[in-house]
């Protein structure tokens, strides 16, 4: 070798030192990991209540009830008292256990009491038994703040209140789902919700459910005077699985204390491009949604819808809820089919409602033929792109959309690609997309605005309002631009279906378009192929024969 070992070692050391001087990147400490609070005794529960009332909101945290807890003999202070500025904002996981002996006293009947005074988070899988005294009271909570949820709970509460509900009183912005109340107020059967709620869904009560006039939505609920609570909720668990909620504890002896509901549904197919997972029923789609909401991304997996899906009687929630880390990262091919009677109106997880809350993968060849989406934010296909590569291509929607804050036809805050899409509805007062779509191309809108003004730095490519098109022009553009749609979205043309204002037609065949059309659209791919072939030819012919 041309260098002695000592010299080489020295030089290497110099280089190493020089590099290290330039780097000096600190090894940063890991962030503290999440530690749920576990409640296993009356003392723990009282301490938890004190913590919330002192200002710890438990936002983004889960508090778990590890076993049945008896708080008899304790004058319990509600968690997040009504008069306190603080509320519980996390998830209270009852885990199928019971808080019994709850005693909240208020002889003056001026305080609004419940296990929670004001609930801002989620309570689920919990049974409450006890005695609550006050003004406007509830077994689980008196009032709510924000989009609270009370799910799969039971209340066996004796109320002595001016107004009292087994689950709660004034739950104006809360969803009450799969709950049961067998409670009394002042000796008479108590309502499930005594004043109002945003949504009361698939619940049962021994008395009238709620003051219906004040409640926005009530569906799937029954009065159960002498009914079979366990059987009712067994059916509810299956229906909720289709909606997308849960999984929750199953019901035994009128309380949610059984095992977690399991549905052993499996997909047909292998999830590959040549043998995709088949979506042939609402149950298939529910399984996809629930698994994504449970953390699976299906990255690189392919789904193919083989039938039109009818969602009648289902109250959907998004696939991959917005305020979670979950996302769908596979390919969902609608196969030229549609979703009918698709309804979504819950404020679950903030009410950012769309078919997909977070999308990282591809959705193509899908029609949202009928139904409605309401929420804080409402759009047809996706609320947010979790990755910029998220793509919605060759899809259409006729959904009725209403957003309390904002509505947008196809996507809301979506930094991905929307190519070759169509929105059709009779009355439209919202834009096609709201924010930051990096590639918006070859799309058509029945409304008056393609992009919400001032919200995107990228200009749409070849997008039109339907009002600007003449008779028959829409179908002609949809047909003619389909190869460009494929090229712009990076999706194979042969995987797309012809789309018209009346729906999907046949799958694209090569003979549908002329060679010149393909040449103009696939010019970059052709350049790539020609370059590779040219390189091979050059290497074969131009051998380096010369000596240096």
């Amino acid at each position, binding site marked *: 070798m041309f260098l002695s070992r000592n010299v080489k070692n020295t030089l290497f050391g110099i280089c190493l030192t020089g590099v290290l001087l330039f780097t000096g*990147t600190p090894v940063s400490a890991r962030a503290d990991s999440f530690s749920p609070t576990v409640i296993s005794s009356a003392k723990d529960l009282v301490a938890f209540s004190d913590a919330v009332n002192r200002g710890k909101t438990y936002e983004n945290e889960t508090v778990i009830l590890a076993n049945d807890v008896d708080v008899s003999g304790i004058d319990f202070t509600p968690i997040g008292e009504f008069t306190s500025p603080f509320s519980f904002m996390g998830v209270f996981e009852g885990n199928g256990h019971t808080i019994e002996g709850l005693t909240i006293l208020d002889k003056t009947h001026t305080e609004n009491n419940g296990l929670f005074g004001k609930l801002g988070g989620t309570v689920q899988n919990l049974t409450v038994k006890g005695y609550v005294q006050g003004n406007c009271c509830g077994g689980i909570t008196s009032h709510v703040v924000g989009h609270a949820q009370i799910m799969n709970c039971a209340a066996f509460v004796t109320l002595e209140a001016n107004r009292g509900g087994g689950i709660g009183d004034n739950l104006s912005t809360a969803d009450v789902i799969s709950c049961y109340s067998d409670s009394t107020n002042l000796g008479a059967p108590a309502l499930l919700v005594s004043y109002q709620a945003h949504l009361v869904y698939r619940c049962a009560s021994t008395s009238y459910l709620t003051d219906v006039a004040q409640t926005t939505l009530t569906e799937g609920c029954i009065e159960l005077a002498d009914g079979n609570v366990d059987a009712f909720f067994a059916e509810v668990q299956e229906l909720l699985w289709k909606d997308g909620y849960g999984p929750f504890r199953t019901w035994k002896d009128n309380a949610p204390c059984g095992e977690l509901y399991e549905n052993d549904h499996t997909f047909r197919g292998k999830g590959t491009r040549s043998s995709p997972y088949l979506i042939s029923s609402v149950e298939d789609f529910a399984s996809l949604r629930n698994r994504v909401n449970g953390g699976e991304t299906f990255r690189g997996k392919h789904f193919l819808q083989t039938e039109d899906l009818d969602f009648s009687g289902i109250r959907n929630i998004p696939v991959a809820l917005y305020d979670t880390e979950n996302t769908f990262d596979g390919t969902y091919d609608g196969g030229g089919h549609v979703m009918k009677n698709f309804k979504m109106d819950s404020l679950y997880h903030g009410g950012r409602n769309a078919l997909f809350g977070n999308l990282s993968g591809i959705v193509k060849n899908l029609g949202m033929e009928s139904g409605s989406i309401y929420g804080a934010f409402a759009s047809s296909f996706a609320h947010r792109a979790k*990755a910029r*590569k998220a793509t919605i291509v060759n899809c259409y929607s006729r959904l009725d959309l209403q957003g309390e804050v904002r509505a947008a036809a196809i996507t809301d805050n979506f930094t991905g690609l929307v190519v070759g899409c169509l929105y059709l509805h009779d009355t439209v007062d919202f834009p096609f997309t709201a924010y930051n779509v990096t590639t918006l191309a070859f799309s058509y809108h029945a409304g008056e605005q393609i992009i919400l003004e001032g919200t995107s730095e990228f200009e749409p490519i070849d997008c039109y309002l339907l009002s600007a098109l003449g008779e028959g022009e829409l179908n002609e553009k949809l047909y003619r631009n389909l190869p460009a749609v494929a090229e712009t979205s*990076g999706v194979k043309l042969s995987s797309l279906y012809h789309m018209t204002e009346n729906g999907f037609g046949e799958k694209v065949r090569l003979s549908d378009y002329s060679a010149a059309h393909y040449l103009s659209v696939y010019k970059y791919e052709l350049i790539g192929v020609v370059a590779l072939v040219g390189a091979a030819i050059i290497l074969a012919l*131009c051998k*380096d024969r010369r000596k*240096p």
Partner: protein
Amino acid sequence: MKKQKVNVIFIALLLAAALVFVVQAAIWGMKEPYVFAFPLFRDIREIPFADYWHVNFIVHDNSPYYGDMSSYPPLVLVFARIFAAFADYTDGYETVYLDGGTGATVSLYLFFLVFAFLYALLIFRILEKKGFSLPVQIAFVVASFFTMGLVYNFERGNYVLYALLPALFFFGYYDSEKAWLRELAYICLGIATGIKLYPALFALILLHERKFFPFFRCVAYSLLSLFVPFFFLDRGLANIHQFIRWLVSFAVWQAEYGYNYSITNFLAIMASFFGGAPLAEADVSVYNVYPYIVVALSLLSGLFANKKYKVFLGASIAMILFPNPSFYYSASFLILTMIAFLAEEKKDAWDIAYMALLVLSVAPVYMGTVDADYSLYVNQFVETIAMILMMFLLVADTLVHRIPPIITKNKNCIKKAA
């Protein structure tokens, strides 16, 4: 190789500039402890090694052109996947920088250590092949690490470092006696092109030496390295569509004035200083014809130059001054010119002028601030002007040395015919 005074002075000047840089950086760091804001580096508000983290992020989901607005060629992105695998980039590259844990740190160290080791090894072998003694090899390695191109490259953690390595290999072995080494050199130039595109201009040396078949082979390898990596990305060749879209939009809207050698930015800044529109309102696009003039002059002059290092110089100036965003790290490729300069057997007054301008082009010395808001510092102008002067010198040089012999040759032919 016979010891040359010019070479000694050249390396001594580079080492002196390096020493000044180190002292300046140390003083600046001590003057403002905890806030290392040495102006020669990028805005301190950006995270260190930003380009390294950013490239790893855009490639982590194997969809850099649809998943991000990447204007990097695909080969560097496929290569970056190796380093991106050390940490989880799902939540963005800032998260990895701040909380990436041991994996992120190890990947960064590997990135620099592998480069430093291979770079030093290549320089040693090339200089030894050209007959330089060990002290000269060591001095040049140290001096070259402290040229502006590499200093800035380290600060940004830019993957163009890994385009420099194959370019150096090509430089060192394109004229090897062994056929397989020559072929490997051509492949390396192709790889360098696949990483950064501009190193393709170094094939000019093959044209200069009339090695046309090797030239075409380099073209072939460049095409392969440009297009084959697309097949390793999601959506395959369809990515070309988006790659070109982002490449064009990046080149057009990137009107960054600071740390930037491009001729268009330089002219816009000069016009602004001499009574033109303020920098915030300057229209860089009105100077869009000048890069093409620079490329034509540099490449043609280099092609017909009378010395080998001038060929590399012509190619280097073209690749540094042409792109609209052409940051300091593009000056890394001047290292090839510098080695070729050292290896030149005979040096005259012209070469001394080149030497002075080369030193000015790469010295990482803080010379004062022009406009801190736009990150404009005196050294940027000195370096850019030095490169422009080198270009004109090259043109004049080529005209002076090439045309008279042609005239003389033609006169002799006419006389013979008569």
